[in-house]
């Protein structure tokens, strides 16, 4: 078997906030092609900083980031808030990455149609964000991240603000998209439930300083649905991860 080139890797990355507080200490992680990696941890463990480093939006103080995705558009990002332009229509919001990349107008129209189809927003192209529900706004943000056909999708607690029912439906649809498109996903969440449902692998983080304390594979196949949520292995894994989280927090507190 030939060694698989990772999509993205952090080697012993340390990062500090301007005040000198260590946000991340000697963090190493590897994202392999086609993986769905969930990052879980309590608030303040540097999850968002880690994602920002992966996206190349932040440069680490020490350590190395190696990546095969370097040109804009190969990497899509979804933030905690939908972060849409409130004055622009759904279609214009989705088109933004392509416009910034200077793509010709013909391609843009086709790509918008494709992305709108993927997230199930057909018919809402000319709506404004204020006219949509929270879940639909998040769909627009996901369509915007997918419109460039990225190899890697980074998501920062995208469904945290949604009600539980909507979140579960979005989880299932996200998995379907991930499988269809064959992309690599890194997904930050504070919900173990969500992490175990979605991921092929869960990384557990601990705070002060932010670091990865466990790397737990999820032994379940896809497609996943309510059967997996009700499975005994699901609950067991959740319990195990919860214990890891608690332990990490105890070590950190004086």
């Amino acid at each position, binding site marked *: 078997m030939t060694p698989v080139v990772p999509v993205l890797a952090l080697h012993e990355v340390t990062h500090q906030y301007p005040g000198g507080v260590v946000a991340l200490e000697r963090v190493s992680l590897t994202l392999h092609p086609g993986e769905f990696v969930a990052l879980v941890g309590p608030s303040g463990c540097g999850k968002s900083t880690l994602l920002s480093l992966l996206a190349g939006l932040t440069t680490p103080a020490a350590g190395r980031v190696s990546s095969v995705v370097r040109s804009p558009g190969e990497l899509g990002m979804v933030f905690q808030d939908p972060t849409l332009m409130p004055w622009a229509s759904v279609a214009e919001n989705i088109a933004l990455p392509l416009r910034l990349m200077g793509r010709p107008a013909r391609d843009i129209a086709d790509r918008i149609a494709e992305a709108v189809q993927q997230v199930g927003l057909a018919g809402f192209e000319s709506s404004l*964000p204020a006219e949509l529900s929270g879940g639909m706004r998040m769909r627009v943000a996901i369509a915007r991240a997918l419109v460039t056909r990225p190899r890697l999708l980074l998501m920062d607690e995208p469904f945290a603000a949604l009600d539980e029912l909507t979140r579960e439906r979005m989880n299932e649809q996200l998995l379907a998209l991930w499988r269809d498109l064959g992309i690599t996903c890194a997904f930050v969440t504070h919900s173990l439930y969500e992490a175990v449902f979605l991921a092929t692998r869960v990384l557990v983080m601990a705070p002060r300083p932010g670091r990865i304390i466990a790397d737990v594979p999820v032994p379940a196949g896809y497609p996943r649905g309510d059967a997996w949520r009700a499975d005994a292995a699901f609950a067991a894994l959740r319990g195990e991860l919860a214990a890891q989280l608690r332990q990490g927090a105890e070590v950190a507190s004086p």
Partner: protein
Amino acid sequence: MNGKLIPASGLRWLAPLGLGVVALLAWEVGVRIAAVPVFVLPAPSRILVAGVESAPLLLSSAGYTLRLTLMAFLAAVAGGVLIAVMFTGSRLIEAALYPYAVVLQVTPVVAIAPLVLIWVGVDNASTAVVLLAWIVAFFPVLSNMTLGLRAVDPGLRALFRLYGGSRWQEVWRLRLPAALPYLLSAMKVSAGLSLVGVVVAEFVAGSGTSPGLAWRIIEAGNRLQTPRMFAALLLLAAIGVGVFAVLSWLERRLLARWHDSAR
């Protein structure tokens, strides 16, 4: 009366209108009963007559004042937006220029008028008036627009960086639309200040042949033609209200669908 309540939208127009009619009637009757001299307080009917009699003169003066107000206003909007965009592009330019903009703003325009008049020449009173009104009107646009161009969602800025958006794209696609609500509210203030500036500047810079409404007021005052003075004042108020109404309409139209302030 059919016993139905007046709908809220009707009330919005009927209430002030009714109050106005009652006040005018009280004014008319009061002035007549107390036999107030016409040069102190003319009855509304006298003002109406004076207004109709000198309509051609007053209307052409109003046209002049409106034209100068719009010129100063448009220059203020253009200048304020342009300088604010420059400020966003460079902190250095902002640091260097902003204190002077403040100095220009806080110096009473009446005090600068004689100087400006010397510079542009007494024959160019109109230019002096527009320039002075511009000085008064441009600051709200500058300060609001500077604020608005900065009030940008940090997530969206990160997104622009992620996709390699240029600075120009960031200004054009992100900062300018985000600043639009700030600009529109500044425009309403600025339009009112333009009119104030034009009137005050004409008081100071105008002379015997000055064609604006401000000078009509001075002229009528000197001749104790108080009814005509009131008529000129009324026209000034009408210009102010008209400009404000147009801008409010524009604001609602442009922001109605997406901005909280207009919903």
